[in-house]
């Protein structure tokens, strides 16, 4: 009943989904402070100037939904489900999301298909998105420069990393980590992105490791202010 990969048609809906998920996780885990990984795709469709990399990412929407289950929330900004359940792109909604991110100090869109991966925190009754230590990958540019073989295989590595986190029994002893059967992955008081990247790095190999370096793509943003 609870969707995991969200097609988001406006920034307000994105905010509500992030908040809702964290409140439910909090209720289920009884953790006062928690952190979850969030993946945000900025992908244009062909009619709006997108390319084959974007097509490939969108084709993987359902797969990401299925395979990343309980580990990472993926959001496709500007994409929504039509009544027939197919994905449709709304350039105006996409632009409004980009504007909101830009206003919050998060900029730098490659133009075709980008992935932002960052931590979302719930603490002191507020939700914040940590763009200070985030992963920003321009998938089109990375493929063009041969740093990654293809967007598909690269994302496949991410899904494998998610699966390994799910099945890694030792994680729980190393960090306070919860994998909810229904809702997802959360850590208390520590960044979760670190664990995802560690696993992912081992899967994709040395050539692509540079892609997984976190950097500042913006400030820590209070969700309400986005």
């Amino acid at each position, binding site marked *: *009943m609870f969707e995991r990969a969200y097609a988001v048609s406006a920034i*307000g809906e994105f905010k*509500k989904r992030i*908040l*809702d998920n964290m*409140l439910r996780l909090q*209720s289920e885990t009884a953790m006062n402070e928690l952190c979850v990984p969030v993946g945000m795709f900025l992908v244009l469709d062909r009619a709006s100037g997108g390319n084959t990399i974007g097509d490939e990412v969108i084709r993987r929407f359902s797969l990401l939904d299925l395979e990343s289950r309980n580990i990472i929330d993926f959001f496709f900004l500007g994409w929504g489900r039509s009544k027939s359940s197919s994905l449709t792109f709304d350039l105006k909604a996409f632009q409004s999301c980009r504007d909101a991110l830009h206003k919050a100090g998060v900029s730098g869109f490659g133009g075709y298909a980008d992935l932002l991966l960052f931590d979302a925190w719930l603490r002191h*009754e507020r939700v914040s998105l940590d763009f200070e230590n985030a992963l920003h990958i321009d998938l089109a540019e990375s493929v063009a420069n041969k740093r990654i073989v293809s967007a598909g295989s690269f994302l496949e590595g991410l899904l494998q990393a998610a699966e390994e986190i799910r099945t890694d029994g030792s994680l729980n002893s190393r960090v306070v980590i919860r994998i909810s059967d229904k809702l997802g992955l959360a850590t208390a008081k520590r960044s979760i992105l670190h664990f995802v990247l560690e696993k992912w790095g081992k899967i994709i190999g040395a050539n692509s490791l540079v892609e997984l370096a976190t950097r500042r793509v913006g400030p820590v943003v209070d969700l309400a*202010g986005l």
Partner: protein
Amino acid sequence: MAHTVPFRLPRVSWSKHGVNLLSFRQDARDVLGEYMPSEGAVVVDPLWTRAGVPEAIAIHEVRHQFLYRNTTFGLFTQLLTFMVERGSQSRGPRGSLAQQRQEALDLKAVALELGRKVLPKCFENQWCVQELAATYAEISYVAARHPELFEQEVRGLPSARLDQPPYREVFDTMDRLLPVDPRRPKELSDAQAELVGLLVAASMNSDCLVRMQKLPWDVGASPKWVMDPAKALLACMKDPPYLRLERIMNHLVANGLLEPLREEAAREFRRSADSSAAKNPPSPGAAEILYERIVTLIPQLAIYRDADIPEQAHYANLAWKDLTGVNVPKERATEPFPAIKESRQREQQGLAAHPVSELPPIALRERLKLTVQNTLGLTLEFWLKEPSQAFVAARSYFLKKGAAPCPGGKEDEGRSPLPVDVHGLMSTPDIFRELAPFPALPHIVVFGDDSWRRWYKVPGGRPRFEACVQVCRQTHLTQDYVLYLLQFVQEGDELPDFIVRDLRAGRAVPLEALGEGAEFFLIKLGLNEHVGCIFNRRRPLVYGLQKLPADLGIQLFLTICQTLGIQQCQESRPVLYTDLLTMVAFDFVF
């Protein structure tokens, strides 16, 4: 103790949360619904707001209305609101004219002070419990009847974490103790929502009115107020509803009483439903039994019963009248139905997109001439705010050959295109002057909402259109508006004042008698768009059209028609002008 986390509601601040008790807002949407004491519970046109479950919005607003009109704190709020709104217009009860003027000035100053200091506090004190009862009832309704939308509706609640009013937080506070579960049978969800409503009613049935009667004010004394009025009224709220609900819930939880109470609620509401189905003689209702149980389970808290409230309200009103010289309107009655109204945002957008301009008389004249020359049909639509001026819209249509004023059918599709509509503001004398050479026109006159009442005040207005088809098309749906529509259809006279007065005061009016001879039928225009048509075969040229958005609109209309004694039209007795009415209805909705 079963739950270690105490029941604690968020603390709302008028300025911080932009809290508005009377409206239920959601991000990036128009207002979905609101409760205004003067208008009752309102659901904004769900076709416009795209509300997933309009019935749930209605339930939310009706819950506010109930608490506002049937609890001591609700009545206290009414008195306070009334004082703030009317204080400046009041006159003192006795003394010379000069004294009365001075007293009026004093009261105005007091009203300003109360509006600034006391009324916001009054709303803050009840915001959480009001919204808890209303939102819990709304979400429970969705969970029981549209489980697939349950999570979406919860997710859509505004939240303090997003710097919005804390609907989500108040809902979660109760949901932790009495979870709303979409897998639970409907009857159990309903019973639990009723129980929450009763717990909130208990929190709002405080001693505020008793405290008010005992205030040390002396109307004969000078100064009139023995103590500062703002302080005095703030003192009446020393036991605020949000703290009372916390005490009630924490007591029930700490003593293991909540679960047995929930089970009793399920049992009692089931018994009540069975008894009602079996048509057994009336016995104490489930709500009465449960409320009494709540009162007895928490003896340390003064919780007033329904039977106590009229007397308290009476004496509080008397104290107020002595002080202000103004009668407080009686508002204890419960409106039978919510209203569905057009979105103000939509109206504003419409006006911005199509600003109203003057319609030169020659434009109407040319349209009338063209209508005769080309043997077309003509609809004139009127909107009046005052009898001297009208917004006029002239719309042409193809006439059915030899069957004016009925519209033509598909055979007209090949004909030359119809002229575009002309519309704008005109003075009523200009309208009469232009219409004078064309006594057979228009074929159809359409009055927007209650514009007909003002048109009838124009000398010669009513007889001018007696030969053509007359339609009143109404946008807002309430019992009062349908009553006016019925009046248009029945006699075309205004409702007698005593009926309006009695309706507003909630007194019994033989409503069903008003619908004598009237019938209704529904016109389907789209998947979710219907129009209700009221008519009386005695007046075959007169029809009332009511916009009915979504299923909620249809259900309300059917219920109101039943209340007013309007019979459903029998298929065996066809209605004249069905095609014509469908054409007008279509223009109306789209």
